């Protein structure tokens, strides 16, 4: 006790700085975690979180017996999985290529252009997509000479979602890789050049090995967020006709919870999503650990 008191007296200014962040985190991060229990209760605003009646697994059972349940789980997983599959390698290739560019100002210029889409709101991106994909006068149809209503085609939804995601964020994704590559000792390149190594050999034997730990770390982090498919973009691109592939859990949680005020039910569905996510994080972490013993996570 004496030690604690001493520490507080000595460092009170530092603890005071932390006061507001800690209070906000308790209220808006930890209290909601405590509130997750309404997934097992029949939440009534008048009774409060702990006062509402305990109903056990009722909401989970209702979700698993709802007609679109498996379609939503499948869509969420596939959209996330294909996104990761297609989007993840792009920044790596871009970074490896750009790093070899020797003309500094040209390189900076290209980077500026590649970063740009990241600074645009998803709302704007989806607005652009709606314009470009319009069957009449839309850029894509004009270029192809067709009149397809892409947003009404369930088979096109994932491609639209993923391609536009790559357009928006692949450029931004190179920053972390470029930072790693910038740390490479230039004497390695000098030596490689004297040995007559081509650009591709330098990438293959110097740059790529240097990137591997970063790639693994980024992969674990992305896999841990796999089921966290963003609500925003799917919601904005969803139409009645593409629901066969665009119906995902996040949108369902929003509709049930915020639009229909079914708080307990929506919390249960959201909790299920979180649990799958955490399970995937642990699974991927285990696999990666087995593959490479020397890379530790967090």
């Amino acid at each position, binding site marked *: 006790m004496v030690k604690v008191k001493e520490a507080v007296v000595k460092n009170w200014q530092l603890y005071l700085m932390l006061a507001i962040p800690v209070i906000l985190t308790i209220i808006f991060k930890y209290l909601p975690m405590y509130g997750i229990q309404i997934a097992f209760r029949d939440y009534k605003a008048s009774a409060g979180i702990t006062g509402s009646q305990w109903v056990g697994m009722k909401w989970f059972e209702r979700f698993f017996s709802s007609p679109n349940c498996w379609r939503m789980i499948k869509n969420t997983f596939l959209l996330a999985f294909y996104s990761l599959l297609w989007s993840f390698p792009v920044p790596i290739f871009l970074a490896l290529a750009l790093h070899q560019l020797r003309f500094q100002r040209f390189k900076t210029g290209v980077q500026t252009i590649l970063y740009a889409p990241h600074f645009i709101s998803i709302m704007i991106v989806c607005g652009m997509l709606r314009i470009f994909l319009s069957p009449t006068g839309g850029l894509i149809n004009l270029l192809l000479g067709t009149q397809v209503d892409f947003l009404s085609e369930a088979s096109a939804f994932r491609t639209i979602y993923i391609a536009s995601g790559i357009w928006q964020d692949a450029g931004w994704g190179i920053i972390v890789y470029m*930072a790693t590559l910038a740390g490479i000792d230039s004497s390695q390149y000098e030596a490689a050049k004297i040995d007559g190594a081509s650009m591709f050999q330098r990438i293959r034997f110097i740059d790529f090995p240097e990137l591997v730990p970063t790639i693994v770390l980024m992969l674990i982090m992305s896999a841990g967020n796999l089921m966290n498919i963003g609500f*925003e973009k799917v919601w904005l691109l969803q139409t009645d006709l593409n629901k066969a592939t665009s119906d995902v859990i996040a949108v369902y949680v929003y509709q049930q919870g915020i639009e229909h005020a079914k708080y307990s039910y929506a919390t249960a569905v959201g909790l299920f999503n979180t649990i799958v996510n955490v399970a995937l994080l642990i699974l991927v972490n285990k696999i990666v650990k087995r593959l490479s013993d020397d890379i530790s996570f967090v």
Partner: protein
Amino acid sequence: MNQKNNGNPSGLSERTSDIILVVMSVVIAFIVAYPLYYVLIASVSNPYDVYAGKTFLFPSGFTLDGYKAVFADNNLLTGFKNSVIYTVIGTVFSVVMIYLTAYPLSIKDLPGRKYLSLFFIFTMYFGGGLIPTYLIVKQFGLINNIWALFLPGGVAVGNMIIVRNYFENSIPKELLEAARIDGASEWTIFYKLVVPLSKPIMAVMLVYSMVAYWNDWFTALIYLPGVEKAPLPLVLRNVLIKSSVAASQASTISGGYAELNKLTEMIKFSSIIVAAAPMLIIFPFVQKYFEKGMMAGAVKG
């Protein structure tokens, strides 16, 4: 290996490699930039020509009617004003929170530092989810209150860690020690030394927060149901996603349905430019800070 001249097994000289790289970079940059360029030229072109596919590379005709309509639309103007206000308050709030958390946690011999860090980092990996958070915000009476946009975010933990690492790696400890020995309080050290010495990372954080708040609409969708408080992207949802133009516009148009349709299309293109331009104009000026700041902060995340 036996190498002659600058020949090598893949058969490509340095010069050829350079040319391939440059051509590839130009093509990729073009693909990335073209959609935005197309929207820009379409926003000043005759909408019928845009429809007919006559504006792939250059504008056809020149008109600023779309922009005039955007700036005459009260909803869009209110949205623009709201977004500016939210961005300013949100950026200041968020950077202050990050700094107040990162500095104490960067001091190695602060008792309880490990647990305090864990307390924040845990929220990165696990949260209450949409609905429980919504209910807490509601319970605190923050629905339709603009503070609902800032307070529930708390501390941006990922950014806080970057700043904390920057403090640990880039501010000489001897300097802080010397100040402490001279009797400076922690507040003085924070304000007079740490803040001025961390300008590059502060620039990065300011821009990150600014972009996030300027582009955010989901938080407002949930916590600010009142139309008069909607930020610009949320107002644009009616224009871009629902494709409807405010009734106020419709009544001022003479020329009937065709004219209204034409104006709707023009407003779409020009409002995209109006919403995207501020961030796109600002960021090239701060780009150099990103890489620097990220590198200093990223050392052992």
